[in-house]
Structures are given as C-alpha cells and as structure tokens.
C-alpha cells in the first residue's frame, strides 16, 4: 500500500485550475521528486497531501487516512517554504516544542544531531545563516520520527555547500527507511536523490519514471535537458520554461 496517494485529484481556485486530474503515489522507502515550472501545481499537490486545502475532486490519502486527520499528521513531517520563522526562540526550543506535538518523538539530542545542529543548538533562530535555518526546519520535519517527509523546495536559495549538507541529511532519513516527497527547481537535486520523478506541467503529470527512464525517453543525458524536452513537447515556449 502506498504511504501517500493522489487519485484523480483536481483543484480549482476560483477561475484558476491548479490541478487537472493528478495521479501520484509514494511507496514505502521511496523518494519521489515532483518537478515542474513555477505555478505548475507542485505546491498545491503538497498542500493537499498535508491537509492544508481539500481537493476540488478526486481523493487524497496519507497512510490510508484523510491527509488532514490527526493520525496522518502524527506519521508525517513537513519542511515548507516559510518567509519568517519566530526569531526569538533558540534552535533547541523550537525542536522541543515541535517534538511535544508527537506521540513518539525522536530524542531531542538525536534530532539535533541528525540535522547537524549540535554547535548552534542554543542560538536564537534570528542569529542563524540561511543554511542553518533550513537545517532547523529539517529538524522540525523529522523530530516526530515520521515515516513520510514532505520537502517543498528545501534547498532554495542555499549555497552549494549547504545544499549538499542537506542532501546528506535527506539520504540518511531515507536510509532509515523513510519515504519522501520532494519538490524542487534544481533538477540536479532530483537526479542525485530521487528514486522516481514526476514532471508536472499546468496541473497535469507530463512524465513519470526513474530519472534514468525520463532521460532515456527524451534521449537526453541530463535531467535538465529531459525536463526542457518535456516542456517543449507540451507546447511551452522555451523562455517560459527557463524562467
């Protein structure tokens, strides 16, 4: 049974159709990357699986439950794009608070170590660098010992070193048996981390498979070229694709 599933999901915001019938599943232990240009519907798909907004039609489940249910929430964690995190709590305090939301959280010290935060655990969030801030958000996502992680553009705006450091943490989570849904703009990231990728364009899945399968299908050597080829097949103007 998949850990998370979208079946024929559509989502309409007023006149705008953000999703036009999406099928997507994440199997246990699998890291699935959701790729697509801005406004393609990636974040909407994640918001539906997090129970933050209901689908207009179709069905979404997390561990067989309604994504908004408490039982679903207890078994998943999420790193979302957030413009401002409270700055006057320390790293450790943030983690202690989020850990208290879960029934069987990881030990605080384990979470701090798993996110590489030992040296800065007593610093106020406001005093951290961008890479350190993302690692704290990653810690908040894993502190409840979830079986499933949602990572919505986790490395956006990070330098190469911080990005690679977070990749290591994500791989360790998958190594412990966790499943991940990752959305990203960086195709290299999907290539490096994902077991399977789904390319979403204007609310529909345009291609799906392992990164190697997607590259083979479009006869390209890199996932980035494959992505561009898929976008062109779908009739996107190159300048739209590249923005």
């Amino acid at each position, binding site marked *: 049974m998949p850990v998370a599933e979208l079946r024929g999901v559509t989502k309409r*915001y007023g006149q705008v159709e953000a999703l036009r019938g999406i099928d997507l599943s994440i199997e246990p232990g699998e890291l699935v990357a959701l790729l697509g240009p801005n406004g393609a519907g990636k974040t909407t798909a994640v918001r539906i699986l997090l129970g933050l*907004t209901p689908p207009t039609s179709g069905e979404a489940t997390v561990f067989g439950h309604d994504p908004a249910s408490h039982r679903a929430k207890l078994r998943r964690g999420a790193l*979302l794009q*957030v413009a*401002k995190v409270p700055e006057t709590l320390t790293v450790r305090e943030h983690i202690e608070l989020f850990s208290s939301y879960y029934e069987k959280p990881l030990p605080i010290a384990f979470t701090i170590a798993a996110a590489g935060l030992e040296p800065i655990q007593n610093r106020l969030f406001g005093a951290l660098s961008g890479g350190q801030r993302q690692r704290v958000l990653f810690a908040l996502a894993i502190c409840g010992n979830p079986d499933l992680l*949602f990572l919505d553009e986790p490395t956006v705006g990070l330098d190469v070193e911080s990005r690679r450091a977070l990749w290591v943490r994500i791989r360790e989570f998958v190594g412990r048996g966790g499943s991940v849904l990752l959305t990203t703009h960086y195709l290299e990231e999907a290539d490096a981390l994902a077991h399977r990728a789904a390319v979403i364009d204007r609310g529909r899945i345009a291609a799906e498979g392992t990164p190697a399968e997607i590259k083979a299908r479009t006869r390209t050597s890199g996932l980035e070229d494959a992505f561009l080829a898929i976008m062109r097949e779908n009739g996107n103007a190159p300048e739209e694709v590249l923005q």
Partner: protein
Amino acid sequence: MSRVYWMESKMELRKMARLKQYSLSTVAFPLMFYIFFGLVMGSSSLGGVTISRYALATYGAFGVMGATLYAFGAGVAVERGLGWLEVKRASPMPPAAYFVAKGVVSLTFGALVVTLLFALGAIFGGVRMPAGQWLAMWGVLVAGAIPFGAIGLAIGSFAGPNSAANIVNMVYLPMGFLGGLWLPIDFLPKALQHFAVWLPSYHFGQIALAMLHAPVQGSVAGHVEALIGFGLVFAGVAWIGQSRDREKMYG
C-alpha cells in the same frame, strides 16, 4: 495532550518576552502615561476620587488592551502572512493550542502591567484600598483581556503581515483616547462622549472605574453585556478570517 498546551504557552511566553518591541513597549507605555497623568497631577480629584486612583483603573485598562491587541493582532498577522502558521497547521499541534498560548501571553503581560501600575499607585500615588478591593480590581482588569483578544484575533486574521502593527496602533491609540482611558470621559466634547458607547474601551474603563466606586455612566451590567457583545461579534469575524485563510490561493 495537556503537555502540548503547556509547552506551546511556555515557548510563546519566552518568545514574546525576548521580543523587545512587544515586551518593553507593552509594559513601558501604560506606566509612563500613568506617571505623567496619574502621579504628576495625582493630588487633584475628580468626583471625590484622586486622579492617582482614578488613573489606575483607566491606564490599567489601557495596558491590558495593549498587551492583548498586539499579541493577537500583530502576532497572528505576521505568523499567518509569512507562512509560519501553515507549518504549525501541517503539524499535529492541536489548533487551539496556538490560540490558547497567545491568550496566556496576553493575560500574563496584562497582569504584569496591572501589578506594576498598582505598585506605582500605592507607593508614589498614596492610593489606599482594602485588600479585597485591590484584588477585585486586579481581576476585572486582567479578565478584560478576553474581549480584546477576540478583537486582536479579528485584526490578525485579516491584516497583512507588514501593516498589522500599524493597524493595531490605529485601533488601539484612538480607542484608548476616545474611550476615556487617557483623559476622563467627561473632559471630552459631548459629541465624542455619545460616540464612546460604540467603543469596547469605554465599557472596559467604566467597569474598572466602578470597582473604585468612582462615578460612572450607565450600569456595570450594561457595560459587561456590551463587552460580551463586542467579544462575540469579533470572535465571529476572526472565525470567518481563519476559515477564509485556509482556502488561500497557491501555485
């Protein structure tokens, strides 16, 4: 389950106490006003009550309003508008814990302001009252945070993250003045006095003054009913705002 509420409230208190623009201004402004208007002119009297005594009720009400309106209004607007509330909503945190914690902060800072004002009044203003009356007034002032929490939450549920603090200022300061919390209501022009019945601050101030046996307009029961009414209306507005928020547009 109760541990979550305890942790959420404890962390919210720490967070706000360290946020100087909240903790310092919430406490300092009412105390400063009380020193200027309550103590400097303290020996003159108003309807048989010294100003130092009268102003304890009105600046106490003013202080509690401020602690509550900023914690809910500005606090919720920023966390809602900049994505933090959504991170919490995606987690298993019981949604009520978030709002309970804001309430605990409002009550704690409200109680702190009122306690410090009472100390100033007793030590420097020569205010003397039976212990029961001090306690009753303290309780009334601190409990007054409840309807203003609803007003703050209504602001916080609609205001943008960058404008919320200004909107709270534009509500809080005129409401304090026009409700008779800066100057006694009888000093205001008649037209403004008639308008004051539409302000929750006026009703709050009148209840606090009644605890001092100062002359008040209308009945205490009437003022309590008015505050309950304001509280319910704004709680409804806040509920609409919170529900609308969940259907916000995202790409």
